[in-house]
């Protein structure tokens, strides 16, 4: 279903490694199963040929790994970025989280990534392998003799159904053609939550957030969460010790995190992708993005390097706080 192949990417990486442009490659490797692909750093061509994968489960956004990898790796790092990943890349540069010169960005087109949860809905549990075949995925399970074929389109991740952009906003070179910024229905679900009564909405979030097991996966994967020391890991922050209190996860952890990334979140959707409890965490961030768009004009974090996010900027035309409060009140 992806238009480019694993081999194309390996060839590109091998040649850049070979001519010394880069000293290592940030890509993906297969995990236990076909569908739990994880980010990985490759230093040699043989490593690449052995472990590198690319396909419908390479949703992981590699931008954030540059923060730690550029500190460790001598020389430049080749990083493969899908269009939506380049927004995170720019946002990280805006926040001076790594040196642009240490990254070599190869922009790759993306046809949308698959969500294993949706595959499971159609094919059941016990999936032993998933392979792409044209615009279909061939799924074998432990319980069926015959593989099941599903349309790749029907198992797209929500963030890909509502894809915000096929355009790379940062790259050193592109494989394939660049796309356009798209208009999507990504705020529809937020609007549905806004239409609820406060009690309904509270019940909705309490139900969702009470599933949280505080595995910290959302925070660890989030490209906006690159603090040297997270407030939740810092005993003197005054937040950390409250994390152990009752119902904290439900009410506070995710909301504090949403506030911390407000105005910086590019809506890459990684938080919801990695959540083992399938909490729709991205909706909290999208609410912020929608409000910022409404109050201060459309703003896409990471669309350009160095842009001043509305929340850390002041202009004479800014809404008065009272107006924000009033509008918020009407929505609530």
């Amino acid at each position, binding site marked *: 279903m992806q238009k480019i192949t694993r081999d194309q990417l390996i060839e590109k990486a091998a040649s850049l490694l070979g001519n010394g442009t880069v000293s290592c490659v940030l890509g993906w490797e297969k995990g236990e199963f076909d569908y739990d692909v994880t980010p990985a750093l490759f230093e040699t061509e043989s490593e690449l040929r052995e472990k590198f994968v690319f396909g419908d489960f390479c949703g992981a956004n590699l931008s954030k790994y540059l923060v730690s990898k550029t*500190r460790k790796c001598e020389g430049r790092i080749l990083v493969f970025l899908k269009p939506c990943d380049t927004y995170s890349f720019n946002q990280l540069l805006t926040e*001076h*989280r790594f040196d642009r010169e240490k990254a070599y960005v190869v922009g790759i087109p993306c046809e949308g990534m698959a969500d294993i949860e949706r595959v499971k809905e159609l094919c059941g549990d016990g999936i032993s392998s998933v392979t792409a075949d044209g615009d279909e995925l061939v799924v074998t399970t432990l319980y069926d003799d015959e593989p099941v074929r599903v349309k790749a389109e029907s198992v797209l991740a929500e963030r890909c159904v509502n894809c915000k952009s096929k355009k790379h906003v940062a790259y050193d070179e592109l494989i394939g053609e660049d796309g356009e910024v798209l208009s999507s229905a990504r705020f529809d679900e937020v609007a549905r939550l806004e239409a609820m009564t406060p009690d309904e909405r509270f019940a909705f979030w309490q139900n969702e957030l009470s599933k949280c097991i505080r595995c910290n996966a959302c925070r660890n994967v989030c490209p906006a969460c690159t*603090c*040297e020391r997270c407030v939740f890991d810092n005993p003197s*922050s005054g937040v950390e010790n409250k994390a152990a209190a009752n119902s904290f996860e439900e009410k506070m952890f995710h909301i504090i995190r949403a506030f911390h990334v407000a105005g910086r979140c590019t809506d890459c959707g990684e938080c919801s992708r990695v959540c083992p409890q399938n909490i729709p965490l991205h909706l909290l961030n999208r609410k912020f993005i929608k409000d910022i768009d409404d109050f201060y004009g459309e703003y896409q974090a990471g669309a350009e390097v160095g842009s001043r996010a509305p*929340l*850390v*900027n*002041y202009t004479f035309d800014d809404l008065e706080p009272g107006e924000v409060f009033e509008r918020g009140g009407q929505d609530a």
Partner: protein
Amino acid sequence: MQRIGVFVCWCGSNIAATVDVKAVAEALKSEPGVVYSADYQYMCSQAGQDLIKEAVKEHNLTGIVVCSCSPRMHEATFRKTAAAAGLNPYMVEIANIREQCSWVHKDIPSGTEKAIILGKAAVAKVNLNTPLTPGESPVTKRALVIGGGIAGIQTALDIADAGFPVDIVEKNPTIGGKMAQLDKTFPTLDCAACILTPKMVDVAQNDKIRIFSYSEVSEIKGFVGNFDVTIRKKARYVKEDVCTGCGLCVEKCPQKKIPNEFNLGMDNRSAIYIPFAQAVPKVATIDAEACTMLKKGKCGLCSKVCTAGAIDYKQQDELISEKYGAIVVATGFNPISMEKFDEYAYSQSKDVITSLEFERLTNAAGPTAGKLLRPSDLKHPHTIVFVQCVGSRCASCAEKGKEYCSKICCMYTAKHAMLTRDKYPDTDVYVFYIDVRTPGKNFDEFYRRAVEEYGVHYIKGMVGKVTPEGDKLKVRASDLLNNKQLNIDADLVVLAAAIEPDKSARPLATMLTASMDTNDFFTEAHPKLRPVESPTAGVFLSGACQGPKDIPETVSQAGAAASKVIGLLAKDKLTGNPCVASSDELMCNGCSSCERVCPYGAISYIDKEFRMPDRTVAIRRVASVNPAVCQGCGACTVACPSGAMDLRGFASGQIMAEVDAICK
């Protein structure tokens, strides 16, 4: 562990009437860290302060909580007390149990409960206080006065008189302001020009004063003692230092149909103009929007006739940067627009005018050379109706008027009425009023004279409607004292329009981070005890920018502001505020969020080497705060995603402890 003393003040009955002060002192005794607790009638008095000092010595206190009035009132007092007792002054916290507690509660149980909670919060904070030492910063011995009306002029003259250099920034081509437009001044009826123009000349000739006319302040950075100001000198297309003000260009300019602002559009001026004969600086200015040469590149007549060669069509706006130790705001006022007051037919008839327009009509340098002629047909009006409080004291008409009393209208209307009757005894003069307010030295006598000696008809009641009919204005009004409707055929109607702060004040307040009230008047640091200082250190207020004022009041406030400025500039060094932000470099990400929200430009970044966990070394970008520039506003601490930025004396941990104590 701290050893904290709690001191609960009665403030006479101010606090003690609604708060059981003994119960508060008793309850706080058992809070963590508290070793001593007492109450006293007036803690701020000498005896109260002595009580604190003795307790510090006797009980070996390390921290103090005073439960009293607002910290804005007496925090400084109690810090001094602590310092005198040998404690660091920043080990003192005030629990405001007066303004935020006793004054807003009616019954003792709820007042007492809240006072105890506020006290507990302060104790929780002091437990985390650390001694702080302020730094020092130098003082630039130069003052900036924004606005060149009588307020700005008087302030500048007084500061210069003390030997300090002053710059006046005036947005118009000349200084003088509203007073230059007035004819006579109450209550003595001396002519405004006779008392103002000598002062304008004094300003021009004073070698300590520089005038930036036709200029605006475009940027203000820095802090008390060290303001960096950028002044935009607008292109006037005339070389100021070359022009002699001979006026030949004004005479020859073919473009003569431009409404004259100085006469409020009641006559015309040329495209190149000098606002009035006594203008300072007496230099011509080209109105770029009216000049044919600047618009179409044709004409150039003024340049040809100018013997001094002062005309420069290529002149550009000039940016001037200067450092100042103090800034005085003297941006003044304007009458509000009468457009929305349809009932008075201001837009329909030329013969319905504002009082300021009336002022120009009676001024010898005005459009009628001082003869009182009505604008429509230049005939002498025989019946004049003055309407007071147009847009003032108008709580119900907030969309067009003002809630406040404009203060000066009663007196100038009495003046106008009296002068009209004096010069033209054949004129019937009516004044419609809600109340006549004439407090002030010789003010009420002045008004009584208008009524008793000059026979002005003062009628309590408001004008309901003015309808132009033929060459008359039909005035329908109510006479409240006689309880009847009046219909007057007037020749001229004069509206005492409410006054409002100049439109330039709001953006200026933003640049200065000075606070304003809802009407855009600048707020003073204390309405009674610090009336000429803005709450922003180093910013002072002069004249009507702070509230409606007449000339005597403006001049005395201008002098007061000057004396405050002199007091500041006389110092060589200022003690800084130690409650400034600082960044924990180990936690700082270098993300620039703090730098972006800092209104003072106090934050910069440095690249620093750090040992990372796995024995590697990384060069990381981290924030660094300039404590001399930081004002401790705390914006950065909120913007910092990782909590690396914190405010000394108001640390997040301290605030959280206060919140916890309140919510416990």
